[in-house]
């Protein structure tokens, strides 16, 4: 039971983490390097800190995404501790199912029938893995 919850948390947080990192990284903006004495000027830790503070590298979406990916990795390790690798690793492919759903219903991206067919095959494969898990 605990294992099942761990794997589900890993799958969902991986898909959601990728989504937030992708969204967040599209919004990163950095101030011009010239005002910090060029790239070499960033070797000075104080200037580097100021540069990072003025850039949007710590955009909240990125922070949420990185936190979710950390949760993913923690639960992945816990799942690996209790279950065989040959079960946990292929099960992680169900992130494709969730990222397709995120793409379709949150980002409103067009999803082709070929992609839905791929998602259906992955769903069949993961169900088979769960049914014959012993």
């Amino acid at each position, binding site marked *: 039971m605990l294992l099942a919850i761990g794997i589900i948390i890993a799958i969902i947080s991986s898909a959601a983490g990728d989504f937030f990192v992708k969204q967040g990284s599209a919004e990163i903006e950095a101030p011009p390097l010239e005002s910090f004495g060029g790239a070499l000027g960033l070797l000075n830790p104080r200037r580097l800190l100021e540069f990072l503070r003025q850039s949007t590298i710590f955009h909240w979406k990125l922070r949420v995404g990185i936190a979710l990916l950390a949760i993913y990795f923690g639960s992945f390790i816990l799942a690996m501790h209790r279950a*065989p690798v040959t079960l946990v690793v292929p099960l992680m492919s169900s992130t*494709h199912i969730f990222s397709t759903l995120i793409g379709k219903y949150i980002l409103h991206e067009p999803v082709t029938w*070929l992609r839905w067919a791929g998602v259906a095959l992955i769903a069949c494969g993961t169900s088979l893995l769960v049914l014959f898990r012993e």
Partner: protein
Amino acid sequence: MPGNRDQSERVLESIADEANRTGRLPRRARKRYMIAMTVVGVSGAVGNVLLKYGLRNTNVPPIESISALVAAAVSVAATPWLNLGVILLVVQFVALTYALRSGPLSLTVPIRGASIYVLTALLAQYFLGEQVTSERWGAIMLILAGMTMIGISSGGES
């Protein structure tokens, strides 16, 4: 050499453009792509197996509270094989981003899936003694077919 660096940056960009536009592997990037994907497959599979190998010899205490979670994280982080596994998974990720810049996504997703899932299963069978039943192999093949279709369907985008 800022000039040289700009130039190689531009070459990489034009390769990535060509790969995404045509959905094929640009001829001039073939060798680089094959090396990157070999690194992806080998480091991903060996990383997964080392992770499991390290965890098998670790006593993770039962997790009942937040402090137990911290204790579990510390005992896990102190396992050398596991750390090597994590390093290999990071290597896999870096090689993957490199491969994505020199080849199309529609090729990269299925190759990555095939090499990591199949190689992980084979290595787990031989080095960890895990039983991979024919049902499990069948499930892995279904998942690979699904990933290939998803990869082909994302051909045009980056």
